């Protein structure tokens, strides 16, 4: 009877240790997979947020360029599809129009970016190029930094806008 009791106790302890080991190994293995999937999800989310911000910044540059041209030429609010020939001629008649437009566009873009910034994102602007030949093309260097506890991504790219004359 004494022997039976010890054997049962030993089997019970062994069974406990074995079951705990198997289940814990299974859980650790599963958690590792889930952690990897979660990291992928966070990276995807960071990329998506940067891509959405790129779309908004591209649109902001277009509106900033139109608004700057209208401010520079003191025109009443005009179209956002194209600028009139009169506005275009008035603009290019001044020799320093590129420098002036540069300042105005950067001012407008800074106002937009302050409002567009989201949690964990920082927007930085580089050089702005203005090319004008029968219209106006603006190219702005932008860098977006996404910095959270889990993901740290930086994307540098150029945003372009083209203004047609109509």
């Amino acid at each position, binding site marked *: 009877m004494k022997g039976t009791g010890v054997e049962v*106790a030993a089997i019970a302890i062994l069974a406990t240790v074995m079951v705990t080991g198997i*289940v814990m190994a299974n859980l650790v293995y599963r958690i590792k997979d889930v952690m990897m999937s979660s990291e992928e999800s966070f990276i995807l989310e960071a990329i998506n947020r940067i891509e959405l911000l790129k779309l908004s910044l591209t649109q902001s540059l277009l509106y900033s360029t139109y608004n700057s041209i209208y401010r520079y030429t003191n025109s009443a609010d005009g179209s*956002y599809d194209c600028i009139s020939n009169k506005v275009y001629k008035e603009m290019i008649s001044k020799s320093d129009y590129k420098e002036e437009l540069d300042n105005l566009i950067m001012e407008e873009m800074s106002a937009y970016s302050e409002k567009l910034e989201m949690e964990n994102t920082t927007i930085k602007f580089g050089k702005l190029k203005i090319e004008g030949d029968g219209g106006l093309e603006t190219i702005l260097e932008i860098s977006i930094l996404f910095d959270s506890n889990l993901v740290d991504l930086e994307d540098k790219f150029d945003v372009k806008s083209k203004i047609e004359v109509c």
Partner: protein
Amino acid sequence: MGMNKGFIILSFILIIITIALIIVIVVSSFFLRIHLVEILEYEQRYNNAQLGLISLLSSTHENKKIIEIIAEYEAFGRYDNIEEILTNKISKFSNCYSLSIQDKTLAKSAECEPGMYVARVKIPLPNGEVKILRLVME
């Protein structure tokens, strides 16, 4: 005799502890598994809503980007048929959705109330304002 009784009691206690441990481990792993699957599904659908928003805003209608059409609708009241334009685009990747700007609904699926999977983006308007565009998908 007393020793034997003691061993038998100890054995029973150990067996009960073993069974209790097995139940706790199995039940906790089952709940943990369900919880992790829910998190993954949520994250996947959340990312899908973001991808849906990216594809919607990048697409064009009559050579104009949808992001521009929404901005001009909001700023100048253009595009009376905006619901039709947006419905044509969104229904290609979702049949249960709702798209709104600030608190105004721009397009919504007819017979379905979308769930909790939300993507947001701030879109610029020509007048210098910025508004939040929200896509909810099921």
